[in-house]
């Protein structure tokens, strides 16, 4: 029974790539394989390259002091942090709130089998992410440390143990969210969503801003730290030794991890049924006629999409990276902006001022990290009949999705622009062009994400995370959306350096603006023609 459920859960995961949902027939193997290879390749490349860089910087000072075990623990910590962060929100959607819970509960299926199938999905997500971080880290490790049979066993064990720890932490995290929400009022659900969002923002902040600093501090004080930990025979030291190849200690770590996992599974099994059935309990709340309010058709459609956006923590977190980054960086700019710009001014040639182009391009790259429109058609799912049966033009639906994306993106963009105006002391022309270009670019990325989703929507999902997690559509949107400003930036700087024409910033910025206007106009035209036709046919 458990095997059948796990198989079905995993089939859901891969079905969109291999099965045509209309005909129910297998898609051409080639298209499925290409899509999967592309997704995996991009993900692996991005994470592996980043991880190789971090691990190379870490291993050298630690190797010098013979603290390789500390290196293994540090990369494990990073893998656990990232793996848990990504899979924790899937846990809530996949384990507690999938739409087929009722169906499975009605079947003669043991709760243990349902849990096992749900957790298998979480394990694959968390395990894959953690392995993508661990494997380059371990490759770097063996580049510096001699290989032995014991160390290989320990390294393989480490990768597996990290994936189990990620699963355990994700389960506990998702469980905590549900426990909080099980108080069952709409307000507490909103609070839980807000709490999850704030929690995730804190983790993002920690990951991208603080962790580099912490790692630097560790490597700077590596000698003292290592001595202190080793001399006190600290638990961390013992665990580190286990993963360095001490088979005896490794066995103890395995026993402890398995015992903890079994204990967690046992407790979870006892509580699971209570939580998923309690979620649907209703609290009667008074209705009054004041709740009947009128809006225009355009506003009510935007309101609907805002409600959808705010109701789903995974949607907010997976598709609003850009807003998060810009918010975090705008706070940093407030404190460190002056120093950064002074440093840049010292570095550049006063005749070729590429800073404005650099600023604009970096903002546009951050804008491209927002992929709110990328799953927006898929998210309509089984509700699509509502919009299709109402007297609403397809173009209006498309504009509504773009509006939501734009509103969520433009606020941090404007904050960033204002900071640039003050801190970078840009002149009026540069400020105006920066404002225009960065205000226009979200329209392009919104349109791009939406267009890609229109070409390949997935409407038959059982859990929202299936469509809101990083997928081919959102990655393609980020790559194209980020690639264009990156190419413009590189080419502009090359041209400035090559021709060394004074005051070349102005014509380049105007060209940048013209390219962007053309790109946005082209995208809107594409949506208004091909996109509208496609939306009319989707069902």
């Amino acid at each position: 029974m458990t095997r059948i459920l796990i198989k079905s859960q995993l089939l859901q995961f891969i079905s969109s790539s291999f099965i045509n949902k209309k005909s129910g027939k297998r898609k051409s193997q080639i298209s499925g394989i290409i899509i999967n290879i592309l997704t995996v390749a991009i993900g692996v490349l991005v994470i592996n390259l980043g991880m190789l860089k971090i691990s190379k910087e870490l291993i050298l000072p630690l190797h010098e002091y013979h603290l390789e075990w500390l290196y293994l623990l540090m990369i494990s910590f990073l893998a656990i942090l990232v793996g848990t962060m990504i899979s924790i929100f899937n846990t809530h959607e996949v384990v507690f709130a999938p739409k087929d819970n009722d169906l499975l509960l009605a079947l003669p299926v043991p709760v243990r089998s349902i849990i096992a199938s749900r957790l298998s999905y979480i394990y694959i997500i968390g395990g894959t992410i953690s392995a993508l971080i661990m494997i380059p880290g371990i490759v770097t490790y063996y580049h510096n440390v001699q290989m032995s049979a014991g160390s290989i066993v320990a390294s393989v064990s480490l990768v597996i143990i990290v994936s189990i720890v990620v699963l355990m932490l994700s389960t506990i995290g998702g469980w905590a969210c549900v426990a909080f929400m099980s108080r069952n009022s709409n307000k507490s659900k909103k609070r839980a969503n807000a709490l999850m969002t704030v929690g995730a923002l804190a983790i993002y902040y920690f990951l991208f801003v603080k962790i580099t600093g912490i790692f630097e501090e560790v490597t700077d004080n590596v000698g003292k730290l290592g001595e202190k930990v080793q001399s006190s025979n600290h638990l961390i030291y013992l665990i580190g030794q286990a993963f360095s190849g001490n088979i005896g200690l490794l066995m103890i770590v395995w026993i402890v991890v398995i015992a903890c996992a079994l204990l967690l599974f046992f407790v979870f099994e006892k509580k699971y049924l209570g939580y998923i059935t309690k979620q649907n309990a209703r609290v009667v709340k008074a209705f009054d006629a004041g709740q009947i309010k009128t809006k225009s058709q355009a506003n009510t459609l935007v309101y609907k999409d805002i409600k959808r956006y705010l109701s789903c923590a995974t949607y907010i977190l997976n598709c609003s990276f850009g807003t998060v980054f810009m918010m975090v960086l705008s706070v940093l700019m407030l404190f460190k902006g002056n120093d950064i710009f002074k440093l840049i001014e010292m570095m550049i040639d006063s005749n070729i001022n590429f800073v404005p182009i650099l600023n604009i391009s970096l903002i546009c790259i951050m804008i491209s990290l927002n992929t709110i429109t990328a799953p927006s058609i898929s998210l309509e799912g089984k509700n699509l009949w509502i919009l299709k049966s109402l007297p609403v033009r397809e173009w209006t639906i498309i504009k509504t999705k773009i509006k939501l994306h734009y509103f969520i993106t433009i606020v941090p963009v404007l904050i960033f622009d204002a900071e640039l105006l003050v801190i970078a002391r840009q002149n009026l022309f540069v400020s105006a062009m920066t404002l225009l270009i960065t205000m226009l670019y979200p329209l392009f990325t919104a349109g791009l994400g939406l267009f890609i989703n229109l070409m390949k929507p997935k409407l038959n999902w059982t859990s929202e995370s299936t469509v809101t997690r990083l997928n081919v559509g959102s990655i393609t949107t980020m790559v194209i959306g980020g690639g264009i400003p990156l190419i413009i930036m590189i080419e502009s700087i090359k041209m400035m350096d090559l021709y060394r024409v004074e005051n070349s910033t102005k014509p380049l910025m105007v060209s940048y603006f013209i390219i962007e206007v053309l790109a946005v106009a082209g995208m809107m035209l594409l949506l208004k023609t091909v996109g509208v036709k496609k939306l009319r046919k989707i069902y």
Partner: protein
Amino acid sequence: MLQIINLTKEYGDKVAVKDLSLHIKPGELYGFIGHNGAGKTTTIKSCCGIIDFNEGEIKIDGISVKDNPIECKKKIAYIPDNPDLYEYMTGIQFLNFIADIFGVENQTRSERIVKYADMFGITDSLSELLSGYSHGMKQKLAIISAWVHEPKLIIMDEPFVGLDPKAAFTLKEMMREHCNNGGSIFFSTHVLDVAEKLCDKVAIIIKGNLVKCGTVEEVKGDSSLESVFLEMEGSND
């Protein structure tokens, strides 16, 4: 009110509906009967502009669904067989959403929402999220959302599924009243007894082909609708 002329809809190689023609006049309550997979839902969705069709023409109040879908949709309300509604909205938010789309005035919508919600006994639940609604409650809300903008034509797919006996009775009353006031209703059903007692006219579809249509008396003759339907099903096997 609703004219279906030689409708043909194919899914790949499979013909779901073949050369189907029907005419539903103002004030008529028209039942659409057929076995599972006969083509009822496909016909209904084609009428509502939800799915495209291969051949034929569908006109609502004289306007072609293909040429001017928005004008057609302004005149109709559709209730699907499985009311998947926006679970992130409360009941009242959903009704407000539908009323906003159709531009229903505040005072009018207020009166209608209170009236129909009271009739179905879900007024107290209107402030709750739809994720907490049962299937029957969602069905009731979908029905209220159809009546809130008082369309000329209401198209329903298996509207009685999931409704309790009282709600089913209320719905039948509402349907009759709507038609008495000049509106039209086209609905599919498996409950032949309901079709026989409630409808002015019925159409029987088997394997995508319209096999009989007309007034209930014309279709059933001296027999019951059930025996006629079973007989036709048998002869088509």
